């Protein structure tokens, strides 16, 4: 294999990994603070994508419309997150994990039903906006500019989250709630407020991811699943609830996925699952387990 192929595979993997991270970011955030594994995250990702699609159509007229649509999707899904928190998530505090998974799975069914009723079951696809539909040539290497956009977006979201968690007051507040919600309550921290903001932030990330990853996707009611499983794996390998861990794990999984599609193209996903099993058998607490968010 030529080094150029390796580099290309790596960049491809990085792009996949960043896409996975965009989904995993909200998932790990909500787990870190609410201890809820939100099965419905993928479904809200899908709703974000449909909302953005309703704004851009199949051919977004400019990069700005594309980004604006993603932001709108983020806001819409954040609002849905507020509602979901009120009706569902709030009642799932301190409930057995299995019931949480089933309740959020019920939300998946509701979302998927609603999407089918509103947008139908036909597949749709969206082209990248004008600025992103080409490729950038770097020597002999052609990088699709949309992949580059995803990589940059992933990094940007990661940096924003990392700074928000480790450098701002709200991040410190969330960390203390994640460590010991009961104690934080005693110390006068408004725990319900912190939890609700986490849910809203997490859902906003899901909607934003749906909008940002809209291009080059087949938009269908099963879109939610495709990233959800990978994002789940990333969250678990990263050490449940840890944003940095999820970032590293997403990149790792992306590169493995991309590398394996080069080596064993007939079995997509195989290498990832094998890796996940072996990794968790060897290191059940994950990459950065123990360090909350």
């Amino acid at each position, binding site marked *: 294999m030529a080094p150029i192929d390796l580099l290309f595979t790596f960049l491809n993997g990085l792009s996949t990994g960043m896409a996975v991270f965009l989904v995993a970011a909200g998932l790990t955030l909500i787990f870190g603070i609410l201890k809820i594994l939100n099965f419905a995250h993928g479904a809200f990702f899908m709703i974000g994508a449909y909302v953005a699609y309703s704004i851009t159509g199949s051919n977004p007229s400019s990069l700005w419309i594309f980004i604006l649509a993603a932001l709108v999707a983020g806001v819409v899904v954040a609002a849905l997150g507020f509602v979901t928190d009120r009706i569902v998530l709030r*009642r799932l505090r301190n409930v057995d994990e299995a019931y949480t998974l089933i309740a959020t*799975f019920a939300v998946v069914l509701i979302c998927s*039903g609603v999407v089918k009723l509103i947008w139908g079951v036909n597949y749709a696809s969206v082209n990248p906006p004008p600025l992103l539909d080409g490729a950038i040539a770097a020597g002999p290497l052609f990088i699709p500019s949309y992949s580059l956009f995803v990589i940059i977006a992933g990094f940007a979201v990661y940096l924003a989250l990392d700074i928000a968690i480790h450098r701002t007051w709200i991040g410190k507040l969330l960390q203390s709630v994640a460590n010991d919600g009961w104690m934080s309550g005693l110390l006068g921290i408004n725990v319900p407020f912190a939890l609700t903001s986490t849910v809203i932030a997490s859902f906003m990330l899901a909607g934003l991811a749906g909008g940002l990853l809209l291009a080059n996707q087949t938009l269908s009611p099963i879109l939610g699943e495709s990233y959800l499983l990978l994002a789940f794996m990333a969250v678990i390998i990263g050490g449940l609830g840890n944003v940095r861990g999820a970032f590293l794990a997403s990149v790792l999984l992306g590169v493995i996925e991309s590398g394996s599609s080069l080596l064993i193209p007939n079995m997509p996903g195989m290498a990832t699952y094998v890796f996940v099993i072996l990794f968790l058998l060897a290191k059940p607490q994950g990459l950065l387990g123990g360090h909350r968010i």
Partner: protein
Amino acid sequence: MRLINTVLFAACLAVMFTIPLWADQGILFIAGLVLVEMVFALSWNLLFGFTGLASFGHAAFFAIGAYLCGYALRADIGAPFLLLILAAGVAGALAAVLTGIVLLRRTTGIHLAIFTLALAEILRILVGYSTALGREDGLASIPRPSLELGFASFDLASGEAYYWFLCIAASVIVGFLWLICHGPFGRILVSIRQDPERTTFMGINVPAYRLAAFTISGATSGMAGALYAPWAQIVTPESAHWIHSTQPMLASLLGGAQSFWGPVVGTVLFSIINYSTRNLVGLAELVIGVVLLVIVLAAPSGVVGLVHELRRRLTARVSHAGPGAEGKAGSKGKFVQEAA
């Protein structure tokens, strides 16, 4: 109370066996699927509702049984059908033992969920890659076998005949699971779900019991798959898909995971909702989602638990007029034993 239960049970059996006499082909097909999914859901719930382990990859065991049976019937290897079903059970049990030995010692909860899910997806990818198993298209036009019993032979090619066979086979497997769940073994499994550590200090080797439950569950899931293949006459990698793994969970939770018959009630309700909303795409999911959500949030013991609760209140009211507070506690306790 016992009389009501008996009558109810007999009525359900009567409906089950007479469906071919009054329903059309479409409903008959769905009824057959319900029987298969019922066995599958009960198998899953032996783990979840009784032992306290949530497997998210149970479709793998189902698919193993379905592919084994489908392949053997297509290849016409001449093995008796009953033997094929047993072989599917053994294959499911073997797969469960192998995964259980690796996983159950160390993991429960979320990790177990992810492990089982990943393993099932690996199986699905492998099956989808295997040319012998028809790749993504699966095994189509699986013939329905005939049943050789030595003294008699039944041709199961017609829908009615195979349906009746399904009724009997499903009853046998369900009966087997019922006996397991209601004996000392089942009681110890329920103890493990409630408090594994306390159970350990009764001298019980908890990992061994978990493994045993996992193995039995794998075996009966495999048999459910084997019954499915000739009924649907096609088996695709979708049967190993994680979405299929969620079916028994939804049915069990809908019906009530703490009760033995919960998954059966759930499976039937599920099919009724699906069938009655079939004309509007998306509505079925919406309705099932809402119902499921209401049940998980408001009545975690499922439909069966809800019915029991209603009955309990009724009996409490009756005894209230009678022997007073002592009698109230008594009737409630008696009731608990009946439900267990």
